[in-house]
């Protein structure tokens, strides 16, 4: 019988049916970081348990690391305590840790792919909701809580219920100046922030076929913003080419067998889906959020919606959003003053993002008085950008060039908005207070739109600012 990738991966990893009807699912790869793991290590210590497959857990540090302070101890003693807890826990349990001195530290969702740890047909779990990023490789990747981190450490399994599968097919070529970020913001706008509840999203169609792995990661990354715990793209030759030669990828002798196996996990032609949504790529324009949920988004040349015209359930959230954002319904968002530009995060902190922005940014300057920072997602990305001269382009333009980490996406480190500053951000969440100030305001957009905002000092259409046709 024809099956989806989700079903095949699930079947290959199902251990047994649990008494409550859930499935005990084997988790092939476990990724951990400093924020959601220390309590889990504490729990296994209290229960007298050990890490069952230490070589299947990989650690890095990303949320709390300062991006402009390399020397330890960090000025934030709690950040220091958290990184040291992770060092101790990984040492005590024999877990590989991509620490800050390895040259390979970075946002956990960048480290997995860079190292070739993230592979097709596997199950991945991480105490982080953006774990679906790894689905770009045809993996089924779950964001989990700390008690579940404990479960994976102790048993390498999770108790889960199967998900339905919605195929989201995007076909055709994107217009110039429209990016993977616009595609996922558009999908969330169409299907809603809770539209994916109970679903895994299978992203498909010619637009995804043509996307690089990095673009696929951008889309899969934000699945949770649409309510879907998992999102994936079927593996293809591009997937295999990306992985070849990476440190944890299968070596020469095993390579062909691995590729054949990976290929076999792709959804079968004619398999049944619980739902199918089709989107015409040509209909998507550069998209920005105007509110406090990622679904509150419009095309850059549209007016912000009038609450009275919205569905009953959306009206109250829209009114709350306008109060928080200090924006007015019915007006264009274009031209809104921007105070901070943030380029980075597990959504858009990759080398292709930096290349695309630098290509257009060359010779331009950040608007006087505007704070603009670039935070490469990983040390490997940062080093590559330095080597290619991209870092210099950003510095010359007036961006602060920072070290790797999550930074102002969630502001657990010193990078924070102040007061009601408005941030043009390439990150994934525009929740109230998300970027470190209770009254801070976030407008989500593609990396190039962030650059356009940085140059003009307002929410702008990158196609106009950079003459893209």
């Amino acid at each position, binding site marked *: 019988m024809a099956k989806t990738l989700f079903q095949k991966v699930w079947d290959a*990893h199902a*251990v*047994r049916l*649990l*008494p*409550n*009807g859930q499935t*005990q699912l*084997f988790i*092939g*790869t476990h990724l951990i970081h400093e*924020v*959601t793991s*220390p*309590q889990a290590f*504490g729990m296994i210590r209290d*229960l007298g348990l050990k890490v069952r497959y230490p070589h*299947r857990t990989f650690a890095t540090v990303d*949320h709390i690391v300062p991006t402009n302070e390399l020397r330890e101890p960090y000025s934030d003693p709690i950040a220091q*305590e*958290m990184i040291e*807890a992770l060092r101790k826990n990984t040492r005590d349990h024999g877990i590989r840790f991509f620490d800050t001195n390895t040259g390979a530290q970075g946002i956990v969702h960048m480290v997995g792919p860079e190292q070739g740890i993230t592979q097709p047909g596997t199950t991945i779990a991480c*105490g*982080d*909701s953006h774990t679906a990023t790894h689905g770009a490789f045809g993996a089924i990747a779950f*964001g*989990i*809580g*700390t*008690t*579940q981190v*404990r479960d994976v450490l*102790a*048993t*390498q*399994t999770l*108790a889960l219920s199967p998900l339905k599968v919605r195929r989201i097919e995007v076909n055709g070529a994107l217009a110039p100046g429209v990016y993977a970020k616009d595609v996922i913001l558009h999908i969330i706008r169409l299907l809603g*922030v*809770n539209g994916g*509840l*109970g679903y895994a999203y299978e992203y498909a169609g010619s637009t995804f076929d043509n996307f690089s792995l990095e673009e696929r990661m951008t889309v899969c990354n934000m699945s949770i*913003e649409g*309510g879907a*715990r998992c999102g994936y793209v079927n593996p293809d030759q591009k997937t295999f080419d990306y992985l070849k030669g990476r440190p944890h990828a299968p070596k020469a002798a095993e390579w062909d067998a*691995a590729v054949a196996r990976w290929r076999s996990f792709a959804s079968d032609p004619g398999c049944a889906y619980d739902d199918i949504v089709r989107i015409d790529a040509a209909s998507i324009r550069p998209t920005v959020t105007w509110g406090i*949920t990622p679904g509150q988004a419009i095309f850059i040349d549209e007016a912000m919606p009038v609450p009275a015209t919205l569905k009953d359930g959306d009206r*109250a*959230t829209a009114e*709350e959003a306008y109060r928080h954002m200090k924006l007015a319904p019915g007006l264009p968002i274009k031209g809104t003053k921007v105070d901070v530009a943030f380029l980075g995060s597990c959504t858009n902190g990759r080398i292709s993002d930096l290349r695309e922005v630098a290509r257009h940014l060359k010779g331009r300057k950040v608007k006087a008085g505007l704070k603009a920072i670039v935070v490469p997602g990983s040390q490997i990305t940062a080093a590559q950008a330095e080597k290619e001269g991209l870092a210099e382009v950003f510095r010359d333009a007036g961006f602060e060039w920072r070290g790797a980490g999550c930074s102002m996406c*969630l*502001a*657990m480190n010193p990078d924070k908005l102040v007061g009601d500053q408005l941030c043009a951000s390439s990150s994934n*969440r525009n*929740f*109230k*207070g*998300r970027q470190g*100030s*209770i*009254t801070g305001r976030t407008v989500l957009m593609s990396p190039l739109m962030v650059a356009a905002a940085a140059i003009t000092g307002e929410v702008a259409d990158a196609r106009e600012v950079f003459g893209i046709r």
Partner: protein
Amino acid sequence: MSLAKITRIPGRALAVPGDDIDTDRIIPARFLRCVTFDGLGEHAFRDERFTPEGVAREHPMNRPDAREASILVSGQNFGCGSSREHAPQSLWRFGFKAIIAGSFAEIFFGNSTGIGVPCVTLGPGDLAALTAWVQANPAGEVAVDLEAMTVSAGGKVMRAAMPDSARSSLTAGKWDSIADLLEGGAETGRVAKTLPYVA
């Protein structure tokens, strides 16, 4: 490991209405700078309850008797966003032993039921009625009954919903997954051997 059977949660309820209340709001990221969950109860909904200067705002959770409430009532898609278990941990430590909403984000739901905090849903009409009743009767008794799958308040009994896997784990006192997962240890080893990337 012996756990309490969670079958009925009676007590006062408190309504924090609104849809899409995300886990950053429930527990802002700065309170994730910690290596234990201790003390998180104080900070539940911190920025909704206090100004940046620490002045208490008008908020149901700031009422003098708020910590006597054991049931939280909210809107649609409660707990969306970040997977931080700190969110249900902070609510539980504040005093909430059950949550009633229109719907729940999936990771939050699993994190909550996994620490023994039932999350049940009501239809829109019942949820609106319950919210209004709770606001009018802050000291009134509400009960979440996981065996009858009802929520009762003010003499009214409403049909509630919850996936049966989580419900039966709570009522059987098996809501912490670790015992079951450890029991499947031998089968886990057998599956691991079939996976080339693990072996």
